[in-house]
């Protein structure tokens, strides 16, 4: 496995850059020390930060006196070691308090962002790819976030009432969940393709819809499909949230003269909210991931980078899209975790 690869340009595949063995030996020693040494957390933290730095600085040195099209790519060796370092850090941090854990990861994220800001990684192919496509990348990111937010909003607006019905009428709920679970088994690519026909027809029959951006391809069918996938977890977690409210509490609320709406707003919603929030966390991560596929029917988003990259054979472009999607999903996950933690502290 090579730490860094060197390629003559962004489309040709690279070969291992020489002179990396020393780095490997050094880093494995650090890792071994971190594995059993008592201050392992600190060593793991250092390793997680050192690896990208070494890669960045090394790439700058290698690029010296090379033609400007030359690309230095991060090799499998880098990714494996970096992942191992992160896992090691995760493991070493198991026994420290949540606050320290947050601080450690905060240090990692902030240091990486600052190093990127000052240009340590500028020689890496990934960063050069991003610099070349900065505008398109920002657009794609915005589209991806918009697609996901709109999907989440619609899924909640449709799914929450359905969840309430599913909870109140068990039999209807069973059938509903069955249909939604079946939808979940349709492969995303197939669903997107299946929707092209009906949506194209809709746009033809009602030109007004077409003017609004409806069509066989584009954002409308993409959001529709993403909502279909999001409905099952939303409905299920809404029903589970309502189930989490103790029966005697509901009975007391009714007996004391609350209307159904008041029971829902003042008792069921605040008590079932954490469960629903946990569900939304799953929906958000799932939607961000699935939205990548939506690029295939012209909805845009970060998936465009992945598929364009595959088409061109530009690995760095694929990587750029993929890493951004992962980062987005992680950010959404963290956001919901934070909301959940806030909710818990208040209760």
């Amino acid at each position, binding site marked *: 496995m090579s730490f860094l690869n060197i390629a003559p340009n962004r489309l040709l595949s690279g070969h291992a850059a020489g002179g990396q063995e020393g780095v490997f030996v050094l880093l494995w020693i650090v890792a071994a020390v971190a594995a059993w040494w008592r201050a392992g957390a600190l060593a793991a933290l250092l390793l997680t930060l050192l690896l990208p730095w070494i890669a960045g600085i090394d790439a700058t040195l290698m690029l010296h006196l090379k033609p400007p099209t030359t690309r230095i790519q991060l090799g499998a060796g880098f990714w494996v070691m970096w992942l191992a370092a992160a896992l090691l850090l995760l493991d070493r941090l198991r026994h420290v308090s949540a606050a320290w854990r947050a601080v450690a990861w905060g240090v990692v994220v902030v240091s990486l962002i600052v190093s990127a800001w000052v240009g340590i990684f500028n020689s890496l192919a990934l960063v050069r790819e991003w610099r070349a496509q900065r505008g398109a990348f920002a657009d794609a990111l915005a589209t991806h976030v918009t697609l996901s937010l709109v999907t989440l909003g619609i899924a909640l607006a449709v799914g929450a009432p359905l969840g309430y019905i599913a909870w109140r009428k068990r039999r209807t709920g069973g059938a509903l969940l069955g249909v939604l679970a079946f939808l979940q088994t349709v492969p995303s690519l197939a669903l997107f393709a299946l929707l092209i026909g009906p949506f194209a027809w809709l746009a033809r029959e009602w030109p007004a819809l077409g003017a609004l951006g409806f069509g066989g391809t584009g954002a409308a069918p993409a959001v529709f499909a993403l909502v279909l996938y999001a409905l099952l977890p939303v409905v299920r977690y809404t029903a589970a949230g309502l189930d989490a409210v*103790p029966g*005697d*509490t509901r*009975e*007391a609320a009714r*007996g*004391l*003269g609350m209307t159904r709406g008041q029971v829902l707003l003042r008792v069921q919603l605040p*008590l079932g909210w954490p469960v629903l929030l946990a569900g939304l966390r799953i929906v958000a991560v799932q939607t961000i991931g699935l939205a990548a596929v939506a690029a295939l029917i012209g909805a845009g988003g970060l998936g465009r980078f992945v598929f364009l990259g595959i088409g061109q054979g530009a690995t760095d472009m694929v990587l750029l899209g993929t890493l951004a999607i992962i980062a987005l999903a992680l950010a959404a996950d963290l956001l919901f975790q934070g909301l959940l933690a806030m909710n818990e502290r208040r209760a």
Partner: protein
Amino acid sequence: MIEFDHVHKAFGDHVVIEDLSLRVADGEFFVLVGPSGSGKSTLLRTVNRLTHIDRGRVLVDGKDVATQPIETLRRGIGYAIQSVGLFPHRTVAENIATVPRLLGWSKRDIDARVAELIDLLKLDEPGMAERYPDTLSGGQAQRVGVARALAARPKIVLMDEPFGALDPLTRESLQASVKAIQRDTGTAMLFVTHDMDEAFLLGDRVGLMLDGRLAQVGTPLELIRSPADDRVNEFVGGTRAYLRELAVRNVRDSVRRDEHAEGEPIPARATLQEALGAMLAQRRDRLPVEGGGAILLTDIVARPR
């Protein structure tokens, strides 16, 4: 006033309440007692329409409950249940204030009423108002439940085995609180229990329910001394019923003013059961009564005039 007029209720083929008529007067403490499955809880729940009846009418203050808006009806009736059902996300004060809030009382009135109830139900531990239900003991939680039921000063209060899950000491203390509050406020209380002792202790009148019918309605002493039939006699406790009778009668009514006795004096408001217990503890057949006079074993045993 609560009035049941030929009320009938069945779940499928199973008749739970059979052609039942009953009237609970203003300011009366009425206890429905009976084994589980006798329909007493169902009957109670017909008053605030948590259960719908098949035939007959239930009237509150002369008005058929079926003709009133359901929320208005329920907000006018206090309601406490065995499992309490406090709102876990609301503080003690907010729980108590539930119905006044629904009724749109001013904040000042609500605060004053909550403070009053916290005092009345002996919840006056420092910081109690701001605590959450999961920090309360079972007894404290039920005190909050009772306070919540009484918060809007309802003229009618329904209690469904509210003390069934509590330990004996806590239960006695809560029974005393509820009895005192009911007497002072003059509310009509409909109280369901399966505990005969509790029924006789609390009830001005007791209705014994068996298989969806009222087997007998009367004062505790009437049920003990003249049970309507063998089943009532059996349920009231046969010869053990006379021990229960002692719990209903007071020392005050049997004291001999001109007699004197040795030993630890007993208060005049104590029950004859407590007096008998004190006699057994002190191994005496007569005891002095606080404020003068004495209580004699023969008077406890004798049939009261």
